[in-house]
């Protein structure tokens, strides 16, 4: 399905989302998911580098602020006193992990994650201090489906291990599925292994299956992609 000459994901975040990451406008939970995708996606890293160049060009087009005559000299003096930048990987990166940086910093060792189990699904919350944004790792047993649901806001799902299929197609490690209120999807994990995903939702979910009604449900009450 994926040619060896083109490593990396096939389902990418929208360009608007990458722009919001590059500009800095994206809130931290969504930015964490995008940055983790970037670790796995050289193509999107190039796009973001280009968008940062756009930010730089915009910055240079702003009217200049007056600065002291010796600002540049003082800055260069400070740079001269700096130690050379870190060239090697810090110890925390030496051990192989299926979690790329920066996600690993937020999660810690995967075998010490405190999972909450809901049948075939386990979830662990991250970044819990953000109002109206739910960030979680979700582990789904092989071949198991998740309940139908739609979204009031938007939802990003990034595959870290295994894969799942939904109305947007088949998703493997590094792939991002973006869903909004128009999408009623029912992701099904691949049959071979657990599917581990990072999910960021920016509004309560709305179940359309399982319980047979469409009341808004607070996201921590249900396991859902």
């Amino acid at each position, binding site marked *: 399905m994926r040619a060896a*000459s*083109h*490593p990396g994901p096939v389902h990418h975040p929208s*360009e*608007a989302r990458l*722009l*919001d990451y590059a*500009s*800095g*406008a*994206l*809130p*931290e939970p969504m930015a964490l998911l*995008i*940055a*983790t995708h*970037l*670790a*796995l*996606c*050289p193509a999107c*890293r*190039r796009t973001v*580098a*280009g*968008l*940062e*160049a*756009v*930010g*730089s*060009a*915009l*910055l*240079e*087009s*702003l009217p*200049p*602020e007056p*600065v002291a005559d010796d*600002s*540049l000299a003082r*800055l*260069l003096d400070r*740079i*001269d006193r*700096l*130690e050379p*930048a870190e*060239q090697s*990987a810090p110890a925390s*990166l*030496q051990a192989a992990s299926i*979690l*790329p*940086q*920066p*996600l*690993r910093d*937020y999660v810690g060792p995967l075998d010490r994650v405190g999972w909450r189990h809901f049948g075939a699904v386990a979830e662990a919350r991250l970044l819990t201090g953000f109002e109206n944004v739910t960030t979680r790792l979700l582990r789904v047993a092989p071949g198991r489906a998740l309940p139908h649901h739609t979204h009031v806001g938007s939802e990003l799902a990034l595959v870290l291990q295994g894969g799942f299929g939904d109305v947007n197609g088949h998703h493997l490690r590094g792939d991002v599925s973006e869903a909004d209120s128009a999408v009623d999807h029912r992701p099904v994990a691949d049959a071979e292994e657990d599917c581990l995903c990072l999910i960021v939702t920016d509004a309560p979910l709305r179940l359309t299956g399982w319980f047979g009604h469409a009341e808004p449900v607070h996201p921590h009450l249900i396991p859902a992609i």
Partner: protein
Amino acid sequence: MEAVLLVGIPPPPFSGRWRRAQPKLFGTGGQASVGTWIFTIARNKRIDHLRRERRPEIHPHDPALVADPQGGTDDVVIWEEQARRVRAAVGTLPEEQALVLRKNFFEDKLHDVIAQELHLPLGTVKSRSRLALAKLRRVLGDTG
């Protein structure tokens, strides 16, 4: 915030002191022009100071990082050339498109907030952003 203060001073990237400073600042994996590097510092400082949030970023030495088959380049000259072309292209954007980009880049505003501020439909703001990026992509596309 020195990086912000520097904006407006045309950095002489190939003069002696800047050239010596660059390995310290970029490391050897640096893949950006000086101007882009300054932009990213200013952006991250802003996120830290104004929103009290961390800035999630990749680590260039992460063993889990998927390498770029096209390779990167450490050649500052290439990045400076790309930056020059982007600057020229940004200068030709219609003001209404540049305004949306500036609000996104320097006021941390998502499209829905920008639409409210400018009293425009969300679709209009999105399409201005899209048109601007389409034009800039043609410029950026030449170096992939």
